[in-house]
């Protein structure tokens, strides 16, 4: 009886220690230290990043990786209120590209789950044999910094004083901004109908804008109504033009007789700052051989932009908008620092497009 109890306690202790070891990532750590193939090394590293065990992930990197822990954490966990700080690694697909006895290149497709939807990130990682294990050589992140300086910002800001509600009927008020839909195109896509085009703020004051579309049947009754949601620049400064796209999933084009458009604008306080330049835009292919529009965003202001969204409108040879795509940038835009972006282009659109235009939506935590 006495020995039985002792044996039971010993076995229970061993089981509990084993569970604790598994929960603390011991298995991944073991896999990482014992990665017998390049793919295993990358998978184990991704598993650690997914668990936010950045210290262990960093410890498993090849010593030739020219970086420090802080830079690694900054790159993987995000900083400065960027979209990456609101994201977590959902999955990572690993596929070998090239391997020899001591070196290998492994492609990893990271899928980040963010507050604004999922974001794909494709990296080609070099992996090196270190004795009996393989270790990832992490590319040195290029964090650009600007020298300390004072950036004078004197762009215009608009404030609104509305009508006092206690005043009589007919008292003076300020009108909503005038906006105009300058183009509209209805196209059929697999499994949906898409309405897209451009809208301009024709007024001399900023506008907060929403574009809605109602699909009408042959008898004039409404079939479906949708808004542009985040595929538009909602705040438009005077004479600014934004693309918009409205998706109608599950609707077939042959059921639509006509479309009723509605652009509603509100007068809102706004600032002309920051100005974000979009430089070096070019059509290209990404690591997965998809058509993308690549470029760099440069925040020309003196304060960080935490989250930026790229909106791209594509035109055919007649100047008609044939597609609008968007993409969020998961790095914060620090002043004067170029940040790369890429937005997808469907293959059939890429073959027809003759021109494109990129605009940027931005969100900053600190407002004036």
């Amino acid at each position, binding site marked *: 009886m006495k020995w039985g109890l002792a044996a039971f306690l010993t076995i229970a202790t061993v089981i509990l220690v084993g569970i604790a070891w598994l929960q603390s990532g011991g298995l991944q750590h073991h896999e990482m230290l014992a990665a017998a193939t390049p793919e295993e090394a990358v998978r184990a590293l991704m598993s650690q990043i997914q668990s936010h065990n950045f210290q262990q992930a960093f410890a498993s990197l090849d010593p030739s990786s020219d970086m420090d822990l802080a830079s690694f954490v900054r790159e993987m966990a995000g900083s400065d209120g960027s979209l990456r700080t609101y994201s977590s690694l959902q999955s990572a697909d690993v596929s070998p590209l090239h391997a020899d006895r001591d070196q290998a290149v492994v492609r990893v497709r990271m899928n980040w789950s963010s507050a604004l939807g999922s974001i794909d990130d494709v990296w080609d990682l070099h992996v090196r044999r270190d004795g009996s294990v393989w270790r990832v050589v992490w590319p040195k992140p290029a964090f650009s910094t600007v020298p300390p300086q004072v950036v004078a910002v*004197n*762009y*215009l800001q*608009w404030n609104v004083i509305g009508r006092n509600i206690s005043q*009589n*009927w*007919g008292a*003076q*008020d*300020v*009108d909503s901004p005038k906006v105009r839909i*300058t183009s509209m195109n209805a196209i059929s896509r697999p499994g949906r109908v898409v309405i897209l085009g451009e809208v*301009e703020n*024709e*007024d*001399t*004051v*900023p506008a907060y804008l929403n574009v809605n579309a109602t699909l009408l049947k042959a008898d004039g009754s409404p079939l479906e109504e949708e808004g542009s949601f985040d595929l538009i620049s909602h705040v438009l*400064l*005077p*004479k*600014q*033009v934004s693309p918009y796209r409205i998706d109608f999933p599950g609707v077939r084009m042959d059921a639509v007789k006509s479309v009723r458009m509605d652009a509603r604008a509100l007068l809102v306080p706004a600032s*002309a700052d920051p*100005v974000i*330049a*979009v*430089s*070096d*835009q*070019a059509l290209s292919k990404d690591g997965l051989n998809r058509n993308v529009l690549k*470029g760099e965003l440069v925040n*020309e202001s003196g304060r960080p932009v935490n989250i930026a969204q790229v909106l791209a409108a594509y035109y055919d040879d007649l100047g008609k908008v044939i597609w609008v795509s968007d993409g969020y940038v998961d790095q914060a835009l620090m002043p004067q620092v170029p940040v790369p972006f890429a937005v997808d282009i469907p293959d059939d659109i890429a073959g027809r497009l003759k021109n*494109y*235009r*990129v*605009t940027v939506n931005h969100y900053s935590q600190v407002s004036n």
Partner: protein
Amino acid sequence: MTRSLRSRIALGRCLIIVAALWALPGLARAAGLSLPAVVDAGQAFTIPLEGSGQATFYLLGPDHVAKRTVSLGSDLRILSKDVRTAGRYQVILCGSSSSCTSATFEVKAAQPEQLSFFLHPSRVPVSTPDSIDATAFVFDQYFNLVLTPSAVDFQVTPANGAGFSRRVSAQHGVAWMRMDSTPHEGRVQVAAVLGKVEEARVIQQVAAEACGLRMKAMPNGNTVTLETDPVRDCSGNALPDGTVVSFTKVDKKGKSTVDTPIKKGVARVQFSLHGPAQISIACGVVLGNEVALNGKL
């Protein structure tokens, strides 16, 4: 006598009684109440009451009901506050014998004393035909719409240039006019005047679309600074600061765009150069000139 015949006779009697009840007030009015057919809003008046004893008086108006006990054989005074709202009123007088008499009268709006003035829009591009609507509603002191014709003067005073006035007769309480915006930006005051009453509103005339948009290039090493001429519309008015101007550069590294707001009348931007470049400019849907740079700056 069949059941159906009896029920028809009963129905006929009921109809006669109902008709008599409806006719009775009319007969009583003719006999007992003497009222003015029309009175002005807020104007007190009296109703002479014949007979003797006590009676209950009811006044039913468009917005309120009054009930009072009155002495027959004296004058009943209708107070000013009881007839402030224009519309049709009914007077009912019920005596002790439970018989009632009634009569109606009309209260019409008093003299014009208030204006509600709508000027639309609050901002308008210069030189736009029929773009300004001015509408004045004429009310008396109790905010009854004055339906009788009255003359409203619309006095227009631009910031620059001579003002003018236009007299419009209000019809059914509404006077309105439509006019063009003038070629010069700035505030325009429009006042609606009716006798001693004046209501003023301000409309902001703003620059129209950009016209003759031009930029010049100032090279400096590997960069070029582009600056517009003062951005004006076709009437020579400066577009307001904050208006967005789009610069687009195309060179061997691809396309670069900057949407920058006008500051102190001009828009300015700086691009780095990578060989020959073509630079264009636009403001809204208006295109400007193009600049070709050979990359040897």
